[in-house]
């Protein structure tokens, strides 16, 4: 199946150029994270992809994944007098599907709204609306799901669930997701586009991006931690190991793929009592700041 591609997308609002020759390449079946600072053109780009806006110049080739495009806007709202179940049936009905009661209940359960099927959307919290937004999209069985900040209004647990849910669509559905949260992108996306001032500063696989700048993993173990540090430092895929506190190491890796496979082996070999491990904060963030010319350092310079 062909993926989605845009060629030289330009969008002007009067004299303001929101998109400046955007060339997206979204492989079929991928989870594509579109990230960028506020005002970089993410929402404009997504709205063009789903047909809500027309580009000033350029074109969109949705390929085969474009046969059923469903959009999840940020800050979703629905007619307040419709129940959650009616929103789901309406969403499917507008796209020509007629889901049965079981399908409606199943999709609501999938997003954690199984007890709210009969409640009117007007009484929903922002978090519940975000879940309903995603359920209304999933019931359509999209070939391309375009989600603008799908977890923006959710608490950490809800955010985790929704991002996980999007991640599980990989392979069966092509997903383009915009997010301000780089951890979410790093967790579920396999492809990334970094948008700044209307054009792409980077596009490719997440792995390539992380490899380009090097990747760091934070490892927290119980004492004694010295043997763990030594074992990590000896691993072929480790560039450096820095102490960050008692039993806490920042491991800079040269090969993320080898690190994913090798880290459990190294920790097991030295009998480490693992407390926590995961991508070190700032790994993708640092690259993002570097590519977009944003971030605390720049803000401080500009403020000086």
């Amino acid at each position, binding site marked *: 199946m062909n993926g989605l591609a845009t060629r030289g997308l330009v969008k002007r609002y009067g004299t303001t150029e929101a998109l400046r020759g955007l060339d997206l390449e979204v492989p079929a079946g991928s989870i594509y994270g579109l990230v960028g600072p506020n005002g970089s053109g993410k929402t404009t780009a997504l*709205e063009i992809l*789903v*047909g*809500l*806006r*027309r580009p000033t110049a350029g074109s969109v080739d949705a390929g085969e994944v474009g046969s059923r*495009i*469903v*959009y999840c*806007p940020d*800050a*979703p*709202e*629905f*007619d307040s*007098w*419709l129940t959650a179940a*009616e929103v789901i*049936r*309406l*969403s499917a*009905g*507008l*796209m020509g599907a007629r889901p049965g009661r079981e399908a409606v209940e199943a999709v609501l359960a999938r997003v954690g709204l199984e007890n709210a099927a009969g409640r009117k959307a007007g009484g929903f919290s922002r978090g519940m609306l975000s879940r309903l937004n995603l359920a*209304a999209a999933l019931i*359509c069985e999209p070939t391309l799901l375009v989600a603008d900040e799908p977890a923006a209004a959710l608490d950490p647990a809800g955010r985790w669930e929704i991002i996980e849910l999007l991640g599980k669509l990989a392979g069966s559905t092509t997903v383009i997701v915009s997010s301000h949260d780089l951890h979410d992108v790093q967790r579920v996306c396999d492809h990334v586009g970094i948008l700044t001032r209307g054009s792409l500063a980077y596009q490719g696989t997440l792995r390539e991006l992380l490899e380009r700048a090097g990747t760091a993993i934070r490892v927290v173990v119980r004492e004694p931690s010295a043997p763990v540090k030594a074992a990590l430092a000896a691993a072929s895929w480790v560039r450096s190991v820095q102490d960050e506190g008692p039993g806490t190491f920042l491991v800079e890796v040269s090969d993320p793929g080898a690190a994913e496979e090798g880290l459990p082996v190294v920790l097991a070999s030295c009998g480490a009592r693992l407390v926590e491990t995961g991508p070190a904060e700032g790994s993708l963030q640092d690259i993002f700041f570097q590519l977009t010319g944003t971030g605390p350092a720049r803000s401080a310079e500009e403020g000086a």
Partner: protein
Amino acid sequence: MGAWKLEWIRMWRTKRIVAVVATFVLLGLAGPIALHYLPELIKAGSKNGAPVPVLPKVQPVQGIANLGSNISSIGSLIVAIVTASTLGLDSNRSIAAFYRSRVRNPVALIMPRMASSAAIAIAALALGALGAWYETEVLLGHVPLAPLAAGFLFESLWLCLVVGVTAFYASVLRSVAGAAGASVATLLVTALLSAVPHLSPWLPTRLSGSLSMLIGQPAGDIWKAVLVAAVVTLAAVAVSIRLFAQREPGA
């Protein structure tokens, strides 16, 4: 659930259907009653010793004409408000995104909203006219049904014109109040133009209040106004669909 069923649910849950039907029925019933009891009301309200004006005998046709007159003002205003709020698709950016990203065909998106507004207005007019006819028969005298039915068709065309003009403004303005206000203002200006003798026969405002027009008198040259109303309504619907299709989300 499809777009047509959605409009049916919208009309009930938002009480729009109740507002329109109740208004028209109330206007239909109240007119003949007020005319019947008017002499007694004036007599009761006059001060001691003051001469009581002698009113001419009320004709049955006045019971129907009263409803037609009220539809020109209150009825048209309510139909414009209901139509503008139903077609206020883009007044909420997120709701607009939900519908517009799923329904690409502008006719499928807009037509159920326009048609439901017009259907409710016409159904309410029918019930109001029936109420006025019944009360007139009971209190004021006989009214033949055939000319009333013909007047009903002209009055229905007038309400369709109100829906069409409001749809046009809803496709230009995102604000519901703005669309309803602009629509009513346009109809008022058209009514003022009827003072120009050469324009008067062509103005669709002649159809406003036409419910009783054919009772006891010929149609005359109303067909010019019918032609203009039909053309303007169809043009307004076509243009509004085109404008809705071209509109992008607001900021």
